[in-house]
């Protein structure tokens, strides 16, 4: 069975740490990297070609929405799930418009995120 190759992007390190621990324990998921800012995300997508990107919208250097715009032009077969602590609903809507599959508002249930990653796995 091919593992889902997941790229995590979030600059909130404590949360990233816990997310990595949680997902690492899943047999069908492989974490291929963690990016702490927007530029890192784009570089790592090019380098690792992940199946799934867990994207934070509020990051230094380049925010999540800008990352989505860039990905949009790259014509990749990449699923993007937004996991973010945004306080404005309109940002969520914009992310969906820009191609994100789903938006998780922190604090989000990790199992739900897991389900989402698996749902379209087939």
């Amino acid at each position, binding site marked *: 069975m091919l593992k889902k190759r997941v790229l995590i992007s979030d600059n909130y390190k404590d949360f990233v740490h816990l997310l990595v621990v949680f997902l690492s324990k899943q047999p069908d998921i492989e974490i291929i990297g963690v990016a702490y800012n927007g530029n890192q995300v784009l570089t790592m997508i090019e380098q690792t070609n992940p199946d799934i990107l867990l994207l934070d919208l509020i990051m230094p250097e380049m925010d999540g929405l800008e990352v989505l715009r860039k990905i949009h032009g790259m014509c990749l077969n990449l699923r993007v799930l937004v996991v973010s602590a945004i306080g*404005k609903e309109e940002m969520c809507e914009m992310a969906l418009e820009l191609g994100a599959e789903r938006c998780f508002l922190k604090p989000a249930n990790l199992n739900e995120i897991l389900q989402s990653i698996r749902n379209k796995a087939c």
Partner: protein
Amino acid sequence: MDISNGCTQFTDYHRILHENISDGEQIEEAERAKAEKAQQKNEGMYRELVEFSPAGIYEVDLGTGELLSLNDAVCNLSGYSREELLKMSPYELLDEDGRLKLKIWHNQWKGEKVSPLMECRIRHKNGHYVDIQIQGYYISRECGKISRLVVMLIDISARKMAEKVLRENEERQACLLKFSDILRSLSDPVEIHATVTCTAMDHFKSDRCYYCEIEDDKAIIRKDSFTSNLKSMVGVYTLSALPVQKSLIEAGQSFSFSDVHTTEIMGDELREMYIQQKIISYLDIPVVKGGKDGKAVGLLCIAQSTPRNWTGAEVQCAMEVAERTWAAVERAKSEEALRANEAKYRKLFDTSNDGFWWADQHGFITEASEGAAKMLGYSPNELVGKFWTNFVDDTWLDKGYEIWKARKAGQSNRYEIKLKKKDGSSIWAKVSGASLLNENGTYDGTLAAFTDITAQKAMEEELSKSEKKALALVAQLEKADKNKNEFISVLSHELRNPLAAILAGMEVLDITKDARQKSKVKEIMNRQTNQLCKLVDDLLELTRINQNMIKLKRKIIDLNEAIKGVIEDFEYEFEMNGIELEAKIQTEQIMLYADPVRLTQAVGNLLNNALKFTHKGGKACLMLQQENEDAVILVQDNGIGIAPQNLPHLFTPFMQVNTSLERSTGGLGLGLSIVKNVVGLHGGTVCAHSEGLEMGASFSIRLPIVTDSTYRVEKQITSHNHQKNLNVLIIEDNRDFAEMLCTMLSTLDCCVTIAYDGEEGLRAARENKPDVIFCDIGLPLRNGYDVAASIKQDIALKDIYLIALSGYAYEKDQELALKAGFDKHLAKPVDIAILKEVLKNNG
């Protein structure tokens, strides 16, 4: 007339004359014969001469009284033929006056050869009279005896006519001169009526005279003159009731009759009316004005209660009088109207609240109204003779000169200007200035009318101010609302992150059995919980600051020690984050009157920022030093720096967080606004500096220190003054100043309470009964004067020593304070020496 009788008399006179002459002459015979011869020779020549003479000549036989001969000229003069004349006596040609004159003429002759000249009239056959001049000559024919009389008649009617015209002209001139003289001095229309009619009555020797003013269909007689047996005709008459007169008056034709009984120009009804008024002969002269289609405007009437023929000269004269009367009445009327108008404007000028003044062409006031004087605080006389700039506010003189320049160029204008009163204060005035020109069209002066609009201006200004204030408030509220929304959005972000970590931690704990991993997860959850707690604390702190709920617990501290404590707290965290922290602290004590907890919180916030915004391997530095009377705490790092556009907003809560979506270091960014408020409460300042992004940042806190001298003063007072500590109340809404004063008073061993508004101050005074109150003047709720008055009225409080504190140090302010009940007035800033002095005197 009895002609035959007259003829006899004539003959008698000739005879008497003849006898007188014959008695007085003796002529010699020879001479006589010689003379007779010569006489006969001349006879023929003489006859011829007589016949063709233009003068009438006739010859009378003195003996018989018989008319001997006459020439053609006599026939021409008299209209009778030679034959007719030879049958009648020349005496018959004379009128009665002529005969009388002839008698006198004969008496005057006294036997001279040639008679004196006599003028008389002879009656022409056609009934007219002809003026003639008569001269007689005696002729002796026989024996030297005078026997015949030759009379020469010369027609002088042309000369007489000319003389008559001349005389009439002179009379008319004299009459008009007389009227002109009397009219000149009269200014009242009714008086003119009275005088004209009286003078005309006298001049025309009539017994009634009146003048009507004609207005449309009305003839108005205001005053008339009449002899005592007649009645006045003063009144208003309707012309259309007198159609005959009306049509003549309207046509501008005079109307007259010499005897009402015989005139045919009126019917019996009208005749009866005239008779009733005893108007038997009558002359009226209308005055017509307005050119070809003019209408009658006046009517002069002269009447008599006996028949009278009105001569042409009289009519002419009456016309002139009527004309002059009308002109005089009109002139008087317009003068009267002018006077009334002038009186009206004079009244306006004298009584109006508005001001008026006239200035001459050089700009000096020549006349000013009571209103103008009152407005400017002068008496009218004080204004006169002064140059206009004396009354214009100094700041408006340029504008004043500009207007004056235009005025001199002949422009009238309206404008608003500030005028200067006698006491130096100024008023706003709305001015209408008229440029006055003389007959040559050059500038001759100014008439200015002005209204005091100070109150109106003040109201407008107040209105515009409050409008601006309202608009600013609305903008501020809108901004605050927007900031609040932004803040909530950021707050939500900042709360969600630690919550997410805690929730995730719980889920990881569920599936983890590894004890080491569990411990790591718990550590994270613990840290995130703390983060949440700090957020909530910051929020509450900010709210407290915003609501001015922070109360400092101040005491004298050594800042070195406080800072050392903060550094110890942070050393570990810096080390953990791989950032070097350097501390440069003075060894000498820096004494501060401060709340140590708040102050270390403020410095801690700055260090926390340095920690958050400095890259691993970076460097931060905390420096403490004394600069003059200030302690300066400097926190510096070489971290991410601050963009120049963000520098001004760093300390503003909510503003700062606007851009914080780009940040990801956690925290609400409320730290700096808390720092600013805490430092402010201590009477200090904080400022930030950065060269830009990635250039590091530095923050410096500046706080007033307790100097050695104040410290010593404090010691002195405590050691030398063993009285009980003074209980002092400070009522001051400026918190910084209140705290400062509190610090100073504390060093003087006073027990200090602070109140921030008038109401609170009064309450505190009643509760604490302090020994001394320092009270600001401009306070919220109740001002200082009010507070002072209330305290002095209260028996329980009236012994409190009241000191006024104010930003103003004018004598006026001092007076006002003392009047309000204060015992002393101090101007801010207050130094400790003064406080000491004041308290010592009171103590």
